[in-house]
């Protein structure tokens, strides 16, 4: 009897166990992910994808020396002549001597490429899936408009950095173009020509311009109509379509007055600045801390990398009354790690290390306008835009009589260097203008401690193969990473 009872108990137990073991038993879901269906269910979720994509662009870091898009900005600076990656300091030491991203095996080569293409794929996902999401037509228009703008931004950067400029050879192979989201079956594409990539940029920006007409952003890191027009101005400038460049630059900076001389001293760390058209705010819990844009370019803290120094000859490009010149300071303390360097205190981090990152300013657009007008021979229009900026930098207006067109263009290009230092334009300008990087050994001195101390300057003035710095050198280009060559048979 007893045994039968036990058998009965065991049977009941087993039945209980096995029936409780249905498919729902296996239901688990990741706490920090959404599935594709969830992500594209509503415009609200897709807006999160736009927000995340912008954060990715600005803050994704695979190593300390690659702090998001700022890594591209700073590389563009140190590969020119006005900025120097301080020797012996981590950060951009290998970009300064043109070793990476030229070397396609480096992590920097991979990082730049991956950063921009990941943004492109996210934008493609938004464009492909927004129409079927829940939400209003306006919301869908605005989301797609932002996706087009971000995609255009990525392609515009790629085409300017991975091949020589449009004017040199528009048929040269640039980078692959993707306009559909990647699926498990996707294959890598071949390199499209420079012209084809610009066509994609113009098409995307035209779409964005139309879709974002009524879009009102709440945070300045979102691309709105002004940002789109500013990107158009950049693209027209790069393809030497001067009239369109001037027109779009003018439209882009409407409503964004150039900041005053006093505001120029405030540290370039807040998107609320009147002339920031596009910028990425930061907050304490998501910035990259000791390895951020500011950690490299802000030279004022007592510790940290403080890697990016101005060339002493850059200092000499400023007139004495120029408010920007007041930001230079010579370090004369022999025990200081920056001893004998000039420090340029344009960028000063916020106390919580959450300094905002500038992406587009009215000054840049004014300079695009000025340069384009000058190249069209409209010297007075060019000077109007240039002088608007000069006055805000405590400089006197320039007179039309003092210049011919070529001289004025040179003056405007110098103003671009003076105004935009540290914001990531220098290398693309060198490529666009098809010029050589001009680095000289410093012989300038600075009076300190009762003597004239030699100011530190360029310590690399040749390419890695010891050849002189020339125009249109492949050392100026970013290289397609070795991983792409290995895994994309169509390249």
């Amino acid at each position, binding site marked *: 009897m007893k*045994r039968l009872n*036990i*058998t009965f108990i*065991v049977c009941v*137990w*087993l039945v209980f166990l*096995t029936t409780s*073991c249905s498919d729902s*038993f*296996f239901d*688990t879901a*990741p*706490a*920090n*992910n*959404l*599935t594709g269906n*969830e992500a594209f269910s509503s415009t*609200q979720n897709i807006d999160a994808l736009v*927000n*995340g*994509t912008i*954060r990715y662009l600005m803050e994704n870091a695979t*190593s300390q020396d690659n702090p998001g898009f700022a890594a591209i900005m700073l590389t563009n600076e140190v590969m020119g002549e006005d900025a120097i990656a301080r*020797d*012996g300091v981590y950060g951009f030491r290998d970009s300064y*001597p043109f070793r990476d991203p*030229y*070397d396609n095996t480096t992590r920097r080569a991979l990082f730049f*490429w*991956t950063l921009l293409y*990941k943004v492109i*794929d*996210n934008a493609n*996902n938004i464009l492909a899936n927004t129409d079927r999401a829940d939400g209003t037509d306006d919301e869908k228009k605005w989301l797609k408009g932002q996706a087009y703008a971000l995609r255009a931004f990525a392609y515009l950067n790629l085409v300017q950095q991975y091949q020589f400029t449009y004017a040199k050879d528009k048929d040269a192979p640039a*980078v692959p173009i993707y306009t559909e989201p*990647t699926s*498990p079956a*996707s294959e*890598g594409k071949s390199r499209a020509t420079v012209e084809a990539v610009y066509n994609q940029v113009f098409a995307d920006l035209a779409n964005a311009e139309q879709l974002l007409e009524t879009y009102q952003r709440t*945070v300045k890191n979102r691309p709105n109509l002004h940002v789109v027009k500013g990107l158009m101005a950049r693209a027209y400038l790069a393809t030497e379509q001067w009239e369109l460049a001037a027109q779009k630059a003018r439209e882009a900076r409407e409503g964004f007055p150039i900041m005053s001389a006093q505001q120029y001293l405030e540290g370039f760390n807040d998107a609320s600045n009147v002339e920031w058209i596009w910028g990425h705010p930061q*907050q304490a*819990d998501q910035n990259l*801390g000791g390895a951020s844009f500011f950690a490299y370019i802000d030279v004022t803290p*007592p*510790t940290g990398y403080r890697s990016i120094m101005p060339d002493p000859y850059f200092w000499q490009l400023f007139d004495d009354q120029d408010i920007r010149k007041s930001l230079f300071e010579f370090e004369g303390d022999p025990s200081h*790690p920056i*001893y004998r360097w000039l420090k340029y205190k344009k960028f000063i981090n916020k106390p919580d290390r959450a300094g905002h990152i500038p992406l587009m300013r009215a000054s840049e657009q004014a300079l695009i306008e000025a340069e384009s007008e000058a190249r069209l021979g409209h010297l007075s229009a060019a000077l109007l835009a240039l002088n608007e900026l000069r006055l805000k930098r405590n400089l006197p207006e320039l007179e039309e009589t003092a210049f011919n067109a070529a001289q004025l263009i040179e003056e405007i290009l110098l103003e671009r260097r003076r105004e935009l230092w540290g914001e990531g334009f220098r290398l693309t300008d060198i490529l666009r203008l098809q010029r050589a990087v001009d680095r000289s*050994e410093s012989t300038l001195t600075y009076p300190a401690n009762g003597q004239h101390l030699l100011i530190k300057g360029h*310590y690399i*003035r*040749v390419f*890695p193969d*010891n050849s002189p710095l020339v125009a249109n050198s492949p050392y100026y280009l970013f290289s397609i*990473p*070795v*991983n*792409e060559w*290995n*895994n994309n048979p169509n390249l």
Partner: protein
Amino acid sequence: MKPLIFILSCLIGLIVNPTAGLARQETVQGQVRDANTNEPLAGVNIVVKGTETTTTTNSDGRYTIHVAANTTLVFSYIGYESRELPATTGTLDVSLNPVNSALSEVVVVAYGTATKATYTGSASVVSATEINKQQVSSVSRTLQGLVPGLQSVASAGQPGSDAEIRLRGIGSVNASSAPLYVVDGAPYAGDINAINPADIQSISVLKDAAASALYGSRGANGVIIITTKQGNFDANPTVTLNANSGISNRAVEDYSKLSTQHYFELQWEALRNNQLDQGKTPEEAAQYASNELVNTLKINPFGPSYPNPVGSNGRLLAGATPLWNDDWAESLARNGMRNQIDLGISGGGNSSRYFVSGGYLRDQGFIIGSQFTRLSARVNYNTKVNRWFETGVNISASTTNQDAPPQSDSNTGNYANIGRLIANIYPLYERNPDGSYKLDHNGNRIYDFGNYRPSTASAGTNLLGQAYLNKHNNKRDLITFRGHVQLNLVPGLHFKSSINADYTNALNHSYTNPDFGSGVANRGSVTKSASRALGYTFNNLLDYTFDFAERHHVNILAGQEIYVYNVSSLSGGRSNFGFSGKQEPAAASLITAFTGLSDNYKLASFLGKLEYNYDQRYFFSASFRRDGSSRFSPESRWGDFWSLGASWNAKSEAFLADVSWLDNLTIRTSYGAQGNDNLGGYYAYQDLYSIYNSLGQAGLITARLPTPGLKWETNLNFNAALDFAILNNRLSGTFEVYKRSSKDLLFSRPLAPSLGFGEIDDNIGSLQNTGFEGQLQGVLVNASGFRWNLGVNFAHFTNKITELPQNEIISGNVGQLGSTKKLVVGSSVYDFYIREWAGVDPENGKPLWYKGDASSGRSTTSVFADADQYFQGSSLPDFYGGVTSTFTYKRFELSALLAYSLGGKILDLDRVMLSHNGENFGRTWSSDMLNRWTPDNPNTDIPRLTTVTTGWNGISSRFLYDASYARLRNVNLAYTFPSSWTSRIGLQHLRVYGRGENLLTFFGPDGLDPEQAVDGVTFYRYPAQKTFTFGMDISF
């Protein structure tokens, strides 16, 4: 699932109807037990002498036999000495003595136990004796050199850290290749280092399909079964106490480094050379270097009398001597203390037995700031309530406290690497220009954090100064519960239900002080994280052992199991401390991070096993398991795993029975399929978007492409083996050959990065490990009180990729330095594929590497990026194993374990760190650099110095070395006091001993510890330490 219930019910129904016994004139019954352990022995053969009447004992060791009067019974059992006893009516309980050989070993195997000599699977056992000889803090480190075919690499010297273990080659590429740990019958979800080695009775290592297929989707990489001690029935309480104490320091001497004088001269040369390259005349360049040297290194250890200590001839000025000679690596080294006390009490009555223990361990480690402390307690209790009801629980609780400062990776906070970042030209304590110490207002020296140093020399870092201020603490509290009830339904039939849980509560606290070092910029920071993990296994097993037609012995096991794992974590960080000395987040003013996560993993399984033997001669086994896993999509969720095994005990055959020199000869083989579902993540099939919130708003970013068909990897495993023992068991051994074929291998198939994803997971590809292994043990000398036991084990395997999703996959990325491996069909998973060093160009001192292939002709290039990569051999050893030796003379015992690994390559990236060509100002320089290229020294393998990177210390065969090594893992000298003496002071047993761990290391390259990761790439790790210990064992 319904059919299964039906079958189970039927099975149960059948057996509750016992057949009636047959009555004869005399009946003898009783129980057969092991004479040493008192464990009942199942399957003992009992023959009525001179007749053909036989029977065998059931699973409880009980037997009944009907005999005529005045007959003799012969009890025989493999691995035990046979006994002949007169049959006496009534009860005849018998105890058998094991013969002194490995054959009689009882091996704990999947869902049960087996006798080594009759087991069809491949299992190795490490006994408590062998474990207790070792002074290691984690059980995972005890197996090195003891188990044939097991590769154990303890890549970190940090006390409490685990060894990486690979069984019979490398089973996977992208999924885990680590074995499954099972503790007291259930898969273990806690930390291995929480288990007190003193509590362990044995460790079984299951290697082939017959042994591990019952673990189904988790068994593919082998299974390590840890069994804790139990008391004995009918045994008086015994107390054992073990206490020991020792000292640890560095096992292998560090790389040799440049002196201050040489450092300055070489840095001068690098500066001068770069100026020459920028177009200066030699005189200008030399003058520049002399003028700029001190400002480049930011230090002048020669004092103000020598403002430019190196002259324009590149030599240190006469009379200049360094004012200090500090050593940054030594600054963090110490003699670490190690103390251990273990107490155990065991015993039992006729129906219950117990083992109770407590342990304390504190292992400091030789690097300042590291430490591991464990407190553990255990109660194992088993009872037989009555004939049909048995139950038992094993409960253990432990708490561990580990201080583990950063000790891998190239970052500046790495305690193991600091001596390779900051050259010894910099002082440890702040100095005045004349070399005297600066003192604070209390008259103490001030740590020099070196904010003035170049950042390549870790500006703002002095780990010695931070070690006592910062915190890198991990605490774990672990409770392990193993409980079962067993119903003995009819003789031979048991129903066992068990519930097993591992609960871990972890708390990590990491604090950077606001006053000195890296925390100055943000006024210090703290992160604190806590997690709770609970893994439980619930199973129900029916086990039936029966015989039929006298010589046919059958065991059937069937059951069901579920495993559920949940982990939930919480972490937060703050910075900006207002006060010094306060370490908790409450004292910091700015929240920098707060997050929390949870994950679930579930597995449901049905399993069954059939074992059959005919007359203790022919053995067969079959097993089956069906697993459903939450990791996979509903379509590919269920997988089937199985095994078949057979063995033949030749010695039991009549024709060998009289061969007296042969004690055992067994041949066995098995084949089967096991799985590996440990793909890394828990959600292996969906398209996923990471939640990536930004600026207070929801954010998302693509994370993973969908792979709905993704499923487990399967391992098809063939094994064949021979076991023998000869000369009265003085020499015994095992030799095995195997072939493991992994299919449906999970690959992260690389994608073109322009697609926006680096890779996609896919079950494509297959892999094969073929190899052999064996061990021999013998008593070489056994005469006049002197005994010498020697054991040798060895293993060899070939790892080969047999199928890939594409022609080649570049793998083995090392952070900033790039890839190290390439996978192609025919290569191993760890074949180095790196640039090939072609020496230094004697003309100009530039580093050279090869490019081009053999067909088109190879040439050299001085541009690292232009050089081609070539296969340069594998990191996997050709031959590895261990040698154990024990000398016993009267009451002395001297034993030693030597682990060896022959062949394979190791890429020494640690050496790379200190072999820069002059571009890393102030970074440590290897003394190898003295041999750099100069016009006077054109034939060398160290290139010309310059302040711009030449890539020469990029990854190439220049830094690839033969990885062969041998290590004297431990040496043990013990003396046991005579019992006549100990009994006078009331002790049963007293033994004193001295031990040494890692005393000797035989390895080619200087400075490097040979035990690095299995993939053969070093990573600036905490090197191994050697330990001397003295202690004693007492029992009463």
